[in-house]
């Protein structure tokens, strides 16, 4: 994974609560065996009508949403399935960060492992971001801060290891492989075997 130290970009807001992974990428797009090219399926049924034309009223289809790289979602973003296709689709679409007041566990894990910042902010900041879409944000992973317009700075917390992996571009599989001796010792010494 390439390091992610900072994300600077404009926000777009999807204020609906409980946006689930089926909305982020519907199951019918999961019959792929690759992880690339999923951006065109992100939020597909919200973006396109039955005849395949863009729904102009959907936020991501509005002209001012083009080029926005930070998605502010309603509370409990990413609930539902464990499909990693959800963060793959968001990244491929062009998002580099997702912000909410609560993010579902598996989605957050999956996102961070792929370098998509999944950031939980306090409810007040969340409310503000939802009601003020299209603002420039500067997310600094090193300092755990988001700088909003008017030099307003808010803090967020990120698991220390996830943060370290983002900053250094740590390959977590490599990290685990380095523990091969400990894993083998565990297998040999445990009192019962599965």
């Amino acid at each position, binding site marked *: 994974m390439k390091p992610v130290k900072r994300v600077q970009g404009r926000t777009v807001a999807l*204020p*609906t*609560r*409980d946006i*689930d992974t*089926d*909305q982020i990428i*519907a*199951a*019918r797009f*999961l*019959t*792929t*065996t*690759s*992880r690339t090219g999923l951006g065109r399926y992100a939020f597909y*049924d919200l973006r396109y009508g*039955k005849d395949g034309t863009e729904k102009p009223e959907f936020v991501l289809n509005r002209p001012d949403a083009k080029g926005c790289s930070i998605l502010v979602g*309603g*509370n*409990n973003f990413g*609930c*539902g*399935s*464990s*499909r*990693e296709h959800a963060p793959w689709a968001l990244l491929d679409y062009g998002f580099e960060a997702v912000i909410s007041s*609560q993010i*579902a*566990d*598996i989605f957050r*894990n*999956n996102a961070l*492992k*792929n370098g998509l910042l999944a950031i939980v902010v306090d409810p007040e900041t969340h409310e503000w971001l939802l009601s003020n879409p299209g603002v420039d944000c500067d997310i600094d992973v090193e300092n755990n801060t988001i700088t909003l317009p008017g030099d307003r700075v808010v803090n967020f917390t990120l*698991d*220390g*290891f996830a943060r*370290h992996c983002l900053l250094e571009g740590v390959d*977590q*599989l490599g*990290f*685990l*492989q380095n*523990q*091969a001796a*400990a*894993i083998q010792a*565990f*297998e040999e010494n*445990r009192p*019962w075997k*599965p």
Partner: protein
Amino acid sequence: MNEPTTLFQKVWDDHVVVPETPHTPAILYIDLHIVHEVTTPQAFSVLRELGLPVRRPDLTLATLDHSTPTTPVFKYEDLLAAGEGAANQVRQMERNCDDFGLDLLGYGSGRRGIVHVIGPELGATQPGKTIVCGDSHSSTHGAFGALAFGIGTTEVGHVLATQSLLQRKPKTLAVNIEGQLAPGVTAKDLILAVIGKIGVNGGTGYVIEYRGDAIRSLDMESRMTICNMSIEAGARAGMIAPDETTYEYLLGRPCAPKGAAWDAALERWQRLRTDDGAVFDKAVTLDASLLQPMVTYGTNPGMVIGINDPVPQSDDASFRKALDYMQLESGKPMTQTPVDVVFVGSCTNGRISDIEAAANILKGRKVAKGVRMLVVPGSELVKKEAERRGLDKIITDAGAEWREAGCSMCIAMNGDVVKPGQLSVSTSNRNFEGRQGVGARTVLASPATAAASAIAGFVTDPRVYS
């Protein structure tokens, strides 16, 4: 004396390879890894790129379920019923299992089925194990007192290569269910009520332990239904301490320990319970005796009511959006809602007792005109057992379709879809927008409620037929 600890803590402690520190998560050993065709291809690709083998093929259970058609498959062309992408994915899985030396419970094995159905029925799911799968309903296996949770594809790769995962220890939530369920009210109704109470994010960051009299009197299949939907409350895992019911279920299953190994396992399993005085991070209590059959009315599983209650009212934008999508009105009961499709199946309710519950209601009756009813067994073994009991005959005589095993209309990626605008009463676990097909409107319910609704042609309290 040792500090009193929770069931979760015992299983966790038993699998820590390297303890967590403020800077690094724990390395947790995984005893059983279940893999299927949809969330693994990209993980196998990584192993291939790095030239890595699967570390423990013997602890890996592989099957085909998500993108398989529910029409019979004898040759490659038959797979195309689920679409070309799906067929290709099945082929790729067969190839991956071949290349990496995994024993695939696929076509011709007689044991193919939904990941969370076959683990328990083969006896591979056992108390005290850590179990993962690239599917969020892995929580199902917690019904045996295992620590089981869903993982993403990157983590599937981690487990394939190292049999371990990097994990932060979650918090614990006790869900105490007091009293007993009334006749005609099932485990599905109970878990829907729990989700309704704590909300779809009430369990986020927690492992749930279901406790109390109502849980103790449930059979294993009902316990699996309960733990299955823990994820719908945001919890990654749900657990129930093993007891006589658990041991009785496991005894004699193909992968269960035998002879002296069984006795040793039993001794170990008996310690797997939360000690008196152990502290949970959070606790909630529910009285089972107050419940009626439950149905969802919105687009997440927390939007749930008793079948005879009116749809609630709210001005909240997300709530309004959900009701608009469902084309339902506040104040009206769900029981007047016409039904187009009924689906009995999935890892929530696709086991033999579920099929039987539906068949009991269908027996000697006919599915209402204009309603399509699909009954999809959770595995090939469930299918065989249902046919041995003659349930398939009852189902087809009633005018419902009896299909091949798989996930089917739970996730609608194999060609089994609900058409736009149609209302489906489904025994699956997610009523998200579009989950069962673009524009599909899903009402989650128990197998009995689903079958009763198929007969009546509208959402119906199953107790009128019993």
